[in-house]
């Protein structure tokens, strides 16, 4: 497992190194590893290459040759045409400089603005110098997003003229596209972290690149902390931190003053405009600004940043309508509006790359496209042709409050760094303009310097579990770039303790070790692992998969009523989890499988979500089989079929329970955190259950709990006795209800005991 090369020697080496704490060079069993360090293994195009001593001239010669040095096959003609464009990229001029710094130091910080070609080119520069194939190792390049890992791997495979999945591959959660020949692996940062759990020294890799480090995702932050420790144990491992922004000094300082190489991006100046007064309504102001640009500014596409799906659809519609009117009344050029947000189906997302519409008649006013997007267009997607950016200064950001244990997406002001990044999007093809819908004073005083890294805004329970599995016990002094607040960490430790993943002294339990193997939230993992005890592991597995993918129910604004009717076909009176299970069972049925796409369309279900749920399910099934977890179901005829599932849900989600408030109508109160909540209007729960378990807490104008299922307090007392320790509850409604439930439980137990006699 730890080495995917086929030769047994390589495998043995990897294993050996794991147990050997000292310098591997002193280890006689590893002598072979170093004797040929500077000798190329074959007589191919790389014959003259000495590891970590190559130059760009040498690499150029190999690249211009006839034989692909990595696959051994002749280069195709397409390869040479791509090679020409590659040599035009800004990073190419600094290849020698890069190689020198790379060879000299173990850690390198690389700054390249978007468009410099760093993500595709630097890994290839490294391949020609690091020659991982001679070491039986690989080069890894992490990406914060799955889509990026996939598309970049595809691009690089084409550039290197190899088949995707062979020499160049990718690995993302629930999908591994690598083979035994892979030497260049693009992966999500989360995947590398998972690999580190089983291979703490990351022995499979000779070079690790952390790309888009400026985005400061949770996994990248943790990886940086780990790599700081790994480089001490593995002097042969090289690290490159790649960032697109100017806070590179922060990375340098963090990595013991590592050398820095900066490559200018290919950007044009962007003129920035502010409003003289604050805007009363930023959506309306944004729409007006877009139309104003269309009426008065020269050719060039517009990118408008808004916060969420609803807002984007609404603004797109308004711009479209007004634009049509401008065409009719004022002979303006045609205007095409494309919304863009994460939950949009891929083919709709693809449309943003369509060229702007042509003028209506030859010589008429040029057409223009407008992209109305969330902040995914800020960093992850690059759209050429954008000349104007409209920035209202808001985005939706995840934030976690450990005091009430609620993670929510809130519309918040962006940071200065984010605003700069947005403005930069206007200067990709030619000088552009950025219109900020706030005053310069607000920019200076209201906006924070840079966006808070994810680690400060998230629930840390799965991170703490990962760290414990990685062997990091001293969470207090673990060297993170931005350590989280103590309270957030305490909450995570307590949650894991209640889930029995950590014992009272904070040591990883057997259950915790099992749970960390699943790429899931600890609550979901624990629910899945304990499901065989409730005779419903098949069903819980399906529910877990469904909870891990985007919403399966589709509700188009125009057909809400019809969509709700269809949803009611699957409804289970006891809750949404069971309803989702019904959907999945129906989807797997023969009727649906005959033509699943049509079936989903007819039933207002997302085919994409169900497909990926299917995929996730089979991936999780493999892990369960590996861990010898039994796959069983209660017979459907048994009247306990659904009850067992509901009990199993409690095993994972007993900390997300609300009880009906005695006062208000359909008001609920969350257990222990005492938050007033309402059932989300989308629920199918038929009766007003006294106790409900929820999957999600949605913080908006009102507090909603979404995806709820009715449960019984007896089950909670039975399954999580420490969390539901009656003495720990203050006197009140919840405590007395629990006491009554405990009495009932005791009574039942007594009767059962008497019967047995």
């Amino acid at each position, binding site marked *: 497992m730890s080495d995917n090369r086929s030769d047994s020697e390589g495998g043995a080496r990897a294993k050996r190194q794991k147990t050997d704490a000292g310098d591997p060079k002193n280890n006689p069993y590893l002598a072979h590893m170093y004797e040929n360090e500077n000798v190329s293994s074959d007589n191919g195009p790389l014959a003259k290459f000495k590891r970590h001593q190559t130059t760009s001239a040498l690499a150029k010669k190999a690249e211009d040759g006839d034989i692909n040095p990595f696959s051994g096959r002749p280069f195709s003609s397409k390869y040479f045409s791509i090679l020409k464009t590659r040599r035009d990229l800004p990073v190419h001029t600094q290849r020698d400089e890069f190689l020198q710094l790379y060879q000299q130091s173990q850690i390198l910080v690389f700054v390249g603005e978007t468009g410099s070609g760093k993500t595709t080119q630097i890994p290839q520069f490294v391949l020609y110098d690091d020659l991982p194939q001679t070491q039986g190792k690989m080069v890894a390049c992490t990406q914060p997003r799955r889509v990026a890992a996939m598309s970049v791997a595809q691009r690089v495979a084409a550039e290197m003229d190899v088949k995707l999945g062979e020499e160049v591959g990718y690995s993302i959660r629930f999908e591994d596209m690598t083979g035994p020949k892979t030497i260049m692996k693009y992966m999500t940062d989360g995947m590398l972290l998972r690999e580190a759990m089983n291979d703490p020294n990351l022995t499979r890799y000779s070079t690790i690149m952390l790309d888009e480090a400026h985005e400061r995702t949770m996994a990248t932050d943790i990886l940086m902390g780990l790599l700081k420790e790994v480089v001490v144990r593995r002097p042969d491992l090289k690290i490159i931190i790649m960032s697109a922004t100017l806070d590179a000094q922060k990375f340098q300082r963090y990595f013991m003053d590592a050398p820095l190489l900066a490559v200018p991006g290919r950007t044009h100046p962007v003129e920035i405009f502010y409003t003289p007064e604050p805007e*009363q309504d930023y959506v309306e102001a944004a729409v007006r600004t877009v139309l104003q640009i269309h009426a008065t500014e020269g050719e060039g596409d517009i990118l408008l940043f808004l916060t969420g799906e609803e807002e984007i659809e609404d603004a797109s519609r308004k711009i479209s309508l007004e634009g049509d009117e401008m065409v009719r009344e004022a002979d303006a050029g045609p205007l095409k509006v494309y919304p863009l947000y994460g939950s949009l189906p891929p083919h709709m997302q693809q449309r943003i790359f369509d060229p702007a519409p042509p003028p209506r008649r030859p010589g008429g006013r040029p057409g223009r496209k407008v992209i109305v997007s969330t902040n995914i267009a800020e960093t992850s997607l690059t759209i050429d042709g954008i000349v104007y950016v409209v920035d209202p200064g808001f985005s939706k950001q995840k934030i976690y409050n450990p005091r009430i244990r609620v993670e929510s997406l*809130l519309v918040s002001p962006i940071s200065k760094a984010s605003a700069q990044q947005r403005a930069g999007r206007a200067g990709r093809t030619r000088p552009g303009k950025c219109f900020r819908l706030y*005053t310069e004073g607000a920019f200076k005083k209201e906006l924070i310097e840079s966006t808070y890294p994810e680690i*400060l805004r998230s629930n840390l329970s799965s991170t703490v579990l990962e760290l414990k599995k990685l062997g990091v016990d001293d969470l207090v*002094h673990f060297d993170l770039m931005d*350590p989280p*607040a103590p309270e957030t960490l305490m*909450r995570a430790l307590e949650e894991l*303790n209640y889930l029995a993943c950590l014992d009272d002294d904070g040591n990883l339990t057997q259950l915790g070790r099992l749970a960390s193997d699943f790429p899931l939230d600890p609550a979901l993992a624990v629910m899945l692992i304990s499901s065989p005890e409730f005779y419903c592991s098949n069903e819980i597995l399906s529910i877990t998969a469904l909870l891990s993918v985007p919403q399966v129910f589709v509700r188009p604004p125009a057909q809400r009523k019809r969509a709700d009717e269809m949803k009611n076909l699957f409804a289970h009176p006891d809750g949404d989890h069971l309803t989702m299970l019904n959907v999945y069972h129906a989807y797997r049925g023969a009727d649906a499988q005959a033509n699943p796409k049509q079936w989903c369309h007819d039933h207002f279900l997302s085919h994409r979500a169900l497909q990926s749920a299917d995929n996730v399910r089979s991936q999780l099934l493999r892990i369960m089989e590996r861990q010898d977890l039994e796959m069983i179901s209660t017979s459907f005829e048994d009247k306990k079929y659904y009850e067992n599932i509901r009990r199993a849900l409690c095993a994972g989600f007993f900390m997300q329970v609300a009880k009906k408030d005695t006062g208000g109508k359909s008001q609920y109160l969350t257990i222990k955190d005492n938050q007033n909540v309402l059932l989300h209007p989308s629920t199918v729960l038929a009766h007003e259950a006294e106790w409900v378990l929820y999957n999600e807490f949605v913080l908006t104008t009102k507090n909603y709990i979404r995806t709820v299922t009715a449960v019984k307090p007896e089950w909670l007392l039975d399954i999580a006795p420490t969390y539901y320790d009656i003495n720990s509850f203050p006197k009140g409604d919840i405590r007395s209800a629990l006491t009554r439930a405990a009495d009932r439980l005791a009574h039942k137990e007594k009767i059962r005991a008497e019967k047995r006699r």
Partner: protein
Amino acid sequence: MASEDEDYFLPLEQVRPFSSGVRRKRVQFVRSSDLDTTATPTPASSSGTSIADTYLSIVMKQAPSSPSSPSSPSSPTQCAPSPPIRTQSAPPAQAIIPPPPTVTVPAAPEFCDVCNIPLPPQDIEDATGKKHRPHEASLVHQICLTHSHPPSHLDRTRQGLRYLSTYGWDPDSRLGLGAPGREGIREPIKPRVKLGTAGLGTGLDRDGDPLPPRPAPTKVQKLNSKQMRIKVAEDKKRAERIRKAFYQNDDVLKYLGEGV
């Protein structure tokens, strides 16, 4: 003893619950030569630190605090204003040396090691005959002292806190987690719910400074006929007053004979 010459200023702990005893001359006692016989602390030790030491010696039965209790004969110097607190923790040998040395060298001004200002010479007290405030009580000294913060609000029984404490995190240290010297945030980031579509910086002026709160729009009040009549009368009176204030001329009034 310490308060032989001044019967008026009794340390607070020696004040009897009834007032008559305060002004009366105290009955003097001498210490027993046998130190071990007295279990209870003598009320003579007027210095706060010596009392604290006594309590500490009761609570923590450790060697370092014990020598300070027999050193209470040196309390006269401690009561005097000049020596900084630090010198009190000098080795017990000092207890044998009589206090005069500090009094005899007034030429070299001593500096307080906390606030770095010269200490007032001790004999001023005797010259004016008035009790001097101890230097430690002065505002400058108090400000220069390292500030002690209220303890953290965290519930000490929490399991998560216990875990962090075992790895050396102190909730009252006012430091975040992380490698020493690079500690992180202390409090979680506060979520702020933004409702509606008000633009960024509404409520701020052009420079980004908060605007003064806008006065709440006055509510339209409906009056009945009686209230209306009163209001009209009031308005009339006010109008008259204002007219007078603007147009009244003293000379004219004098002429008319009203202003007298």
